[in-house]
């Protein structure tokens, strides 16, 4: 067989090919970095306003501990779910585009995974800084809690670990969904959620029939926030591998 090398460009190193794909996700940072922080900012301002309304309506004695309930608030939980959406969007939008640029599916997936880990680092850093300010200012001066709720852990290192691991989970779970979407479109995603739903219902049935709800509850209490977060890494790894396997055989289509 004849091989031509004269016209070929100098091959890029595997690392460069992967980082190029990762950079692609930040080329226009609006979807991955801009919008999520803006939405989080709007929620924060909304919360501050409500806290201030409550705070200013109370007498100084009543104010102590009035906003303690916000420790169990879930307003920053949105950002985790949104990271799943970001992962789905990022892959479904750039996959056909990158393949036209002569990127292999392997390099594409590894590059995207690298971008997702970078996103997890960036968002963890953001939440940690905001959480630290929140603690230092005694809940923005009013005892409110948004960025460091109780279930992210009690100390700063705990919170960093829990948020980082949660971000990874949602990003990679999102990338698995995106791979299903890219490969089988809406039908695939529907089937995927039916399977996930059936699995969860099956678990509930199993636990109920074996009368083990207390055991399950105890296990979670024993594991604690850190233990549960650490176990989520297993699901993250399964999602990551599943996304890779599914995307390896996916073909880009023009239809949206």
């Amino acid at each position, binding site marked *: 067989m004849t091989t031509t090398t004269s*016209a070929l460009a100098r091959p890029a190193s595997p690392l460069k090919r992967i980082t190029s794909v990762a950079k692609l996700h930040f080329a226009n940072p609006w979807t991955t970095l801009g919008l999520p922080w803006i939405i989080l900012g709007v929620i924060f301002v909304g919360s501050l306003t409500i806290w201030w309304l409550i705070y200013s309506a109370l007498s100084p004695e009543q104010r102590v501990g009035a906003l303690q309930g916000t420790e169990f608030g879930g307003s920053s939980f949105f950002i985790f779910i949104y990271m799943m959406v970001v992962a789905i969007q990022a892959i479904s939008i750039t996959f056909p585009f990158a393949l*036209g640029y002569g990127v292999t599916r392997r390099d594409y997936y590894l590059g995207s995974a690298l971008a997702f880990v970078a996103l997890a680092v960036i968002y963890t850093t953001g939440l940690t800084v905001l959480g630290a300010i929140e603690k230092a200012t005694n809940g923005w001066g009013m005892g409110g809690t948004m960025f460091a709720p109780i279930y992210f852990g009690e100390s700063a290192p705990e919170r960093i670990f829990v948020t980082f691991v949660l971000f990874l989970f949602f990003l990679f779970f999102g990338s698995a969904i995106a791979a299903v979407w890219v490969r089988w479109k809406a039908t695939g995603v529907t089937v995927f959620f039916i399977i996930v739903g059936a699995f969860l219902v099956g678990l509930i049935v199993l636990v109920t029939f074996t009368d083990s709800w207390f055991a399950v509850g105890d296990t979670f209490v024993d594991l604690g926030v850190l233990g549960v977060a650490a176990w989520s890494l297993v699901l993250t790894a399964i999602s990551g591998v599943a996304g890779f396997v599914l995307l390896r055989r996916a073909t880009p289509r023009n239809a949206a």
Partner: protein
Amino acid sequence: MTSTIEVNNLSKRFGKVTAVDDVSFTVAENTICGLLGRNGAGKTTLMQLLTGQQFASEGTISLFGQTPVENAKVLQNTCFIKESQRYPEDFRPKDVFKTAPWFFANWDQDFADRLIADFRLPLDRRIKKLSRGQLSSIGVIVGLASRAPLTFFDEPYLGLDAVAREIFYDRLLEDYAHHPRTVILSTHLIDEVADLLEHVLVIDEGTLLINENAETLRARATNVVGMKTAVDTFVGTREVLHRDGVGGLSSVTVAGLSESERRDAKAAGLELSPVSLQQLIIQLTRTETKEFEASA
């Protein structure tokens, strides 16, 4: 001559539909090759197979001597611009041109800038606000400025006006002369690209009908025009690809003529004219397909 593309007995089936049916051909290094055929003939599927975007059902593909499927060494030398190329929604054209050089080692920014000016492409507008033609020109610019050793253009100019298409052809030829590379151009506008093409592949219903040098292909047929009786006498039992007539006049497309046959025709007072590539392909892919294959 070395070949950039070698395809052997390639087939692709989607369920019961055979999109590409037992196709074999080679494309020599540094040629501009036209991939022609009607809508749904299998052009896009064939190009997706060549770039490893689709997986073959049967047969082998070799680009630069290797399989393209998931092969970074091969694929980073290719650029595939699709008819309805989708771009990340939030991208502006300038984001596309910022990211393209990360993937194409031969990218020429000056050339890209010139093309952007030629096509009058607004750089700051969001992709989704661009017109069909502007969207197409992004693809054309990336395809040209990437200078990938193997570039695929799949109907690259949806919505481009005649002036813009002319710019595309001019720039392609100009740049190709300085930076030879292999270009596969799929299109409906056969006559517009006829002069560009050095090799022609015609595909119909998944089957490769024509795989020939463009010059040889043009010499395959000639129009013979004159009085009906004189034309009929000359044509005789010759293979007729197409017949047209008005009153006593007749125009017949016959398979290639030798020099002496040409002299005979002129002597008989008949007029000879070349058949345009488009006419030829329409005639060959319509009803005479079978006859042509038999003679080929």
